[in-house]
Structure formats: structure tokens, C-alpha cells
């Protein structure tokens, strides 16, 4: 188990290196960089620009530049955001936290609703309630998140009562602690529910399928035959076995939420990683792009490894060393 995780870590570090080099090369291969716009700015002197270029080794060959970046990253020095004019870590920290709040809320929403719905549908397989739900799930899987976000924002603007985008109300700084939490929660409602809708639909379908598969097993028949009450059969014997395969999904879900959140973040003007990356790419803010891509990759790997560990913890049949 431990060895398996170490192996995974080793190969993923190699992958991260490759991905970051790819991004670096792509960013540098394009004509123009952030300093071109700085040079055109009359308020900044030519010497200043050249000093910066020297400081960040932008005149050196590509591989040397990448090497410098890598060494700096390992020293905890993530580079400088030319667009925001602060170290990258300053911007990245708060944005990461915001994305995390959004993803975590929608993950919570998804799982707490999809699992009961999946169980409910499996117990009424092919009755009208189940059919209605599966039709709804199918539609929810196909509706693009960004379009749904726009649509919900439009409806919310007609109905009123919910904040339309952003993360805080104007008077946020003067609020009490609980006021701040409440305000953020209100702002979370639209983006979080939009994000969770499509993943909820797929999770519900998977849970329903798993449950139906388990209910066909012989041990369920045995449990029923020995006269256990139906509740016990479903919630103790069937549910636990139907739940196991879902644990692997949790890791992937975590990762895909991060990527899927980007567009919804942008539409709902939620100040997260996705909208940050968009700004960074547009401004050719190279270190910011590099760091946020790297961070997204790291989070994805962490999610997958966590899923592996969780799976071993819940299912004793799985062992990695043979």
C-alpha cells in the first residue's frame, strides 16, 4: 500500500515536470510577452524593464529559464505576477481558497442529494418516479454549466432576493463574523447549485445502477429469506456494498470540479482559480499561468491518491501488494 503510493508519487512528479515544461514552452513560444506592453508604457523607464528582464532571466535560452523557474519553485519562490504586481503566492492563496469553498460546497450538495436520490430511484426502478428522475438526469447531464449559470442568474434577477454574482456584498468588511459567513453563503447558492447539478445527475445514475446490481445478488436474497426486515436488508446489506465503487469517484470528482468550475466561476464572477487563469492567460502573465496550472495538476493528483487510500480503507478485499 505504502509502496504503491510512493510509486504513484514518483511517476506523477515526472508527469508534473512534463506538463509544466509544456505550459512554459507554449507560453514562451508565442510572440510577445508581458514586457512588450510594459515597454510601451511611458511611465516605466527602459532601464526598469531591462532590470526586470534580467531578474527573471527572460533573455536566456528557454531551458535555462525553465531551470531557474524550477529551482525557484522548489525554494518556495513561485515567481512574480506582472499583472497584479505582487508575488504569485499572494494572489494564488486567496483564489485557491475561494475555489475550494465553491468546490467543497457543491461536492457536499451533490453527494448529500445524489445518494438518497439514487437509492430512492433504485427501489422504484422503472416506475414513473424513477423514469421522471432519469429523464431529468439526462437533461441535467447535457445542459452546459455556463449556460445554466447564465439562465439561473437571469431568473434570479427576475425573482430577486439572491445576489447576482461575486462573492461578497459591498459592506462585507464591516460585518460581524456570522454576518460574513451568511453573506458568503448567500453568494454561494447560485454557483454551487449550478455546479452540482450535472455531477449530481451522473452520481445519481451510478448509485442507482450499483444499487440495482447489488439487490440482484444472492446474499440479498438470503437476507430476505431469513426474514430480515426490508429496511435492514437495504440499508445494512445492500447500501454498504453499493457504496464502495463510488469512493473512487470522489477523487475524480474533486479534480473535475476544479476544471468544470472555471467557466461557472467566470460567469458568476466568483473570484476563484478559473477566472484568475483566464485573466492571466489574456495578460500573458507567465508565472501566474504556470503556477495555477501546476497547482491544478497537484490538486488532481492529490484527489486521485486520496481516492486510492480511501478505497483500501473501505474495501478490505483490495490490496496493492501481491
Amino acid at each position, binding site marked *: 500500500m505504502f509502496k504503491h503510493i510512493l510509486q504513484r508519487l514518483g511517476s506523477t512528479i*515526472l508527469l508534473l515536470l512534463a506538463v509544466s515544461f*509544456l505550459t512554459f514552452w507554449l507560453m514562451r513560444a*508565442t510572440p510577445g510577452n508581458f514586457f512588450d506592453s510594459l515597454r510601451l508604457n511611458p511611465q516605466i523607464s527602459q532601464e526598469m524593464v531591462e532590470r526586470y528582464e534580467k531578474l527573471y532571466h527572460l533573455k536566456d535560452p528557454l531551458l535555462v529559464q525553465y531551470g531557474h523557474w524550477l529551482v525557484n519553485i522548489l525554494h518556495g519562490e513561485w515567481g512574480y505576477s506582472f499583472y497584479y504586481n505582487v508575488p504569485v503566492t499572494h494572489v494564488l492563496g486567496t483564489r485557491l481558497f475561494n475555489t475550494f469553498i465553491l468546490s467543497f460546497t457543491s461536492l457536499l450538495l451533490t453527494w448529500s442529494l445524489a445518494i438518497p436520490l439514487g437509492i430512492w430511484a433504485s427501489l422504484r426502478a422503472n416506475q414513473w418516479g424513477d423514469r421522471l428522475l432519469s429523464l431529468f438526469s439526462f437533461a441535467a447531464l447535457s445542459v452546459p454549466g455556463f*449556460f445554466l449559470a447564465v439562465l439561473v442568474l437571469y431568473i434570479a434577477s427576475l425573482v430577486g432576493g439572491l445576489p447576482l454574482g461575486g462573492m461578497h456584498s459591498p459592506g462585507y468588511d464591516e460585518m460581524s463574523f456570522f454576518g460574513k459567513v451568511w453573506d458568503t453563503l448567500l453568494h454561494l447558492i447560485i454557483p454551487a447549485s449550478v455546479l452540482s447539478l450535472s455531477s449530481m445527475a451522473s452520481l445519481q445514475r451510478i448509485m442507482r445502477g450499483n444499487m440495482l446490481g447489488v439487490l440482484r445478488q444472492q446474499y440479498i436474497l438470503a437476507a430476505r429469506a431469513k426474514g430480515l426486515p426490508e429496511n435492514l436488508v437495504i440499508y445494512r446489506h445492500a447500501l454498504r456494498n453499493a457504496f464502495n465503487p463510488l469512493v473512487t469517484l470522489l477523487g475524480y470528482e474533486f479534480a*473535475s470540479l476544479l476544471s468544470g468550475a472555471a*467557466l461557472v466561476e467566470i*460567469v458568476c464572477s466568483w473570484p476563484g482559480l478559473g477566472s484568475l487563469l483566464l485573466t492571466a492567460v489574456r495578460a500573458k502573465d507567465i508565472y501566474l499561468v504556470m503556477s*495555477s496550472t501546476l497547482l491544478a495538476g497537484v490538486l*488532481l493528483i492529490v484527489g486521485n491518491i486520496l481516492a486510492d487510500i480511501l478505497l483500501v480503507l473501505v474495501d478490505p478485499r483490495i490490496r496493492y501488494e501481491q
Partner: protein
Amino acid sequence: MNNSRISLAFKSFRQNRMAMICLWVLGLLYGLAIFADLISPYSYADEDRNFSYCPPTSIEFFDGPKIVPPFVYQKHLTFDAMHRRVFVVDRSQKYPLHFLRGGRLIQVDAPARLYLWGADARGRDLFSRICYGARISLSIGLIGVAISFIFGLLIGGMAGFYGGWIDGILMRVCEMFMMVPGFYLMLALRAAVPENFNSVQVYISVVLILALIGWASLARIIRGMTLSLRERDYVLAAKTFGVSDLGIICKHILPQTVSYSLATLMLSVSSYILAEAGLSMVGLGIQDPVPSWGNLLSNAMEIVPVIFAPWILLPGLFIFMAVMCFNVIGDALRDAFDPMFQD
């Protein structure tokens, strides 16, 4: 896998009512794209700034109690007491509809404009732009999937056939592409495309970006199938006859995977359509005068225009319809082919 089995699968596909409806809807949408020049009343760039966000034009059939050939009224922009923009219908003059004139299905005479589904910010007809946008949005998915399918087939086939270190390296490369969150990779790749590209170049680069992101997952699926297929007796037979490796992969293994990949392919077309729409919506995909369903939505990203002119949400509905149809057809194809893959 012989012909009767394939025809059996298609028979079961044809019995899926939902899938057949979706096939018809898709046909309709592609018809919109192919005949855009004929169906739409204006060209996609035909603008009239006086009609910015003009609401849909209603076609009149009655003149008093009498039924007359269809005509429209012109609208004028004025401001009400609250200084809000309102379009007032001018009933003093009727503008009859002309059918099949100048190569277009419906037209009206110059000062009046025909906005079947309203106008956008620059007074361009949304209906025409949706028709022309279908060309880009619906073709980008097909071309992108075709490219990544060829790559996926070759690389997945090679990895599965040779196994060993070739498999190891190829699959690590696949993982690399699957590991980075798709949207982030898309943005990073887009950053590498020069900004002064013309619309054709942008179109090609967007297709290539989407294909580059999408081939990896296809390659993994095909590798898995090849791994099981290469142990079959007929592959051994082909080997003993001295058929080259590439020949075996292309002639004997890949055709077996095609029917199953077809379902996966349909499902990935929808994700390509979504990706293009997302990229164009944030302004990094297809650029403005040329319409795609994605960049038609970019105005709708702010809430104020949507409140003024809710019809600018319509392109989103088209994206939804296309994605849903591809999903339903993909699911139905998989169900239809599934019994064949049991053996």
C-alpha cells in the same frame, strides 16, 4: 463480427424511439448549418446599429379582419419617461415579405428589418447568426473528434499491441494529457496561438487544441480493447502468415474496435461542442464577426443585456439540444452494440 450482427445492432438502435427523435433533431440542426445561406434572411455580419437589441419582429397575417399576404411593421427606437430604450411599432407602413428573392428564403425591403428571434447588440439578426453559427459549432465537434480518433486509434492500438515499455511510455503521455484539467490546458494552449490570426486560422487552431486534449481518453479505451483482442487466434494466424505489425493493427484489430468506439465517439462529440462553446464564450475561441453558438453567448455573460434582451440566451438552447442529441444517440449506440461485446 459479421454483417448480420451489425444489422441486428442497428435494428435495435432503430427501435429506440428517443434516439430516433434525436437523430431527426440533429438532422434538422445540420440542415440549418448546410442551408444557412438560404434559410437566414441576412448574412451573419449584416448589421444595423439603429436596431441594437431590437425585440423579435412579429409577422402579421391580418389587415383588420382581412387575411392578406404576410407583412411586417418597422420599429423605431425611442426613449420613455424613465430614459429606457423602447422600440415602438410604426403602423403607418406595411412591408410585405418577399419569398425566395436574392437567394434567401424570406426578405423584407430595406428600411424595415426582419428579426425573427430579435437582434444582438449591433443590430444583427440572431436567427441568421444562429444558422451560420451552427456551421462552426456543429462542424468543430465532428472534425475535432475525427482527428483525435485517428490519433487515439493509432496510439491506443500500438500501445495495446506491443505492450511492454512502448505501452508504458505511450500511456504515461496519455496520462499527462488527462491529468491537467481540460479547461486549464485549453487556456494554456490558446495562449500560444497568436492573436492576429484570421478566422480560418483561429478555427483550425481551436479544432487542433480540442483534438490535442481529447485523443488521450480515446487512446486509453482503444488500448484496453486491443489488449484483449491481440490474444485472439486470428491475430496469431495473421502473424504466422507474415503480416506486418502495422498491417495487423490496422487491418485486423482496429476494425474490431470501431463499432464500440462509435458510441464513445458520439459521446465525445458533445464534449467537443461544449468545449468550443466555453472557449468562444470567454472570448478565446472563434472571434466576433464570425458567429459560433459559443461566442453568441458571450454577450449574455453579463446580466444587464440579458434582462433587456432575453432572446440572446437562445444560442445556449441550441448548444443544449445538440449536446443532448449526441448524448442520447451515443447511449443508444452503446446499448445496441453492447451484447456483441459480451463474447
